[in-house]
């Protein structure tokens, strides 16, 4: 595999092979972050492709001292926020309300055990649904910090770099995200009153 410096040099030259390598290396990270942020697979693919097109279009804005991965996450986060803003300002046609009801429930493809144990499958599906609903209660910024830490395993400092935030803010967003999720996911008995 090409090392990151070579990849960056290739991208700066406008080398299509380097661009493809970038896409193949990072497509899943970019797509999954977009999917979690925008909530449906079609928009997620659209946003993720926008991200790569933007990278291709404006690679000369990349600072060589930055990390390519962090830069990509930042572009992805910004693209998702733009997408969510556009979606919020676009009124949906009436029939879409009925359609959205169907689109909101999008269960994960089941694993082998779930396929043979319908009760387990139902239980997992219910938990997944609760988690997805809980994630809708956090703000986009809190959600992005949580996703980058929880799913992408980025260190807090890397998240701060990717999102252009201080580490203190990242900690605060992460705490608030997990706390909101806790309120949605845990039974009332485990709630803590500590304001």
């Amino acid at each position, binding site marked *: 595999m090409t090392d990151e410096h070579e990849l960056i040099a290739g991208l700066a*030259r*406008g080398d299509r092979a380097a661009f*493809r390598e970038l*896409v*193949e290396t990072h*497509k*899943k990270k970019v*797509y999954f972050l977009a*999917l979690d942020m925008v909530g449906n*697979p*079609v928009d997620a*693919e659209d946003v993720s*492709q926008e991200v*790569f*097109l933007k990278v*291709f*279009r*404006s*690679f*000369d804005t990349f600072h060589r001292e930055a990390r390519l991965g962090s830069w990509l996450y930042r572009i992805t986060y910004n693209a998702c926020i733009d997408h969510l803003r556009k979606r919020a300002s676009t009124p949906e*046609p009436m029939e*879409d309300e*009925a*359609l959205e009801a*169907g*689109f909101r*429930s*999008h*269960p*994960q*493809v*089941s694993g082998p055990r*779930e*396929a*043979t*144990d*319908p009760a387990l*499958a139902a239980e997992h599906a219910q*938990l*997944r649904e609760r*988690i997805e609903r809980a994630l809708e209660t956090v703000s986009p910024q809190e959600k992005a910090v949580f996703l980058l*830490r*929880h*799913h992408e395993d980025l*260190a*807090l400092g890397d998240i701060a770099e990717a999102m252009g935030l201080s580490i203190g803010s990242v*900690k*605060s967003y*992460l*705490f608030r995200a*997990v706390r909101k*999720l*806790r309120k949605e*996911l*845990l039974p009332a008995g*485990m*709630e*803590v*009153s*500590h304001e």
Partner: protein
Amino acid sequence: MNECAKCRDQIAEALYGEPTPEERAFLEAHLRVCPACASEYEAMTETRRILDSRERKDPGPDFWEGYWDRLERRLEAEPALAPLPVRKRARRPFTPLPAWGLQFAAAAALLVVGILIGRTLLRPPAPRIAQATPPAAVPVPGVEQASAPVLRARDYFERSKLILLGLVNYDPGASDVYGLNMPRQKRLSRELVNEAGSLKSDLKAPADKRLRELVADLETILVQIANLESANDLAAVEMVKKGVEEKGIFLKINLTEMGPSPKARTDKSPM
């Protein structure tokens, strides 16, 4: 900052294993003497454990294999992006036009609007036969080209619906599983999955968003059908049925059948 506030600041780090030894020592000492923070920490840890069970919705190998091709098609479709010398222009993509440019653009726009109004008012009525004949075979000027992807999508939905109906109406208590003709269902599903990528790429107009999403939903379900391991894999069949129901697939297909798509409506509106 009081100790509880300091503790809360460190809980997030502690949850994901990042505190320094000093921070960890402070946290542990505080949790021993503060039941409220200890309880909060316990609840947050439990939350994290629950969240660990979250899996992301992987669209499957076909999606990933075709990702670059779809991106490349989009790249080619945007001529300003294809050759990289564009990078210089990309620095200031919205350079304001000079005043004469704006005047020229306004005049051109007026001319185009005039032509469109004239063509709309003077156009002879379109043949009514269009409704009675299969849409793809009807050469109605100005309609079929613009809505070709929409027509393809409807055909796609119709074929998918037939497969799904066979599966959804299957009753294990009333008939034997071979009544499903599973090999045929799987083959047809595979064919539809193969068509989905190009169809989604063609349905790129904003007005086609819902159709595109429905194709994607169907693709997920059809992949499941195509991958059913055996004809009598009843649990898996049930999962597919549940997916169809939860996503409201039939409702969505019926809505697309109830009227022309927004795009087609736009195309037909001058009539």
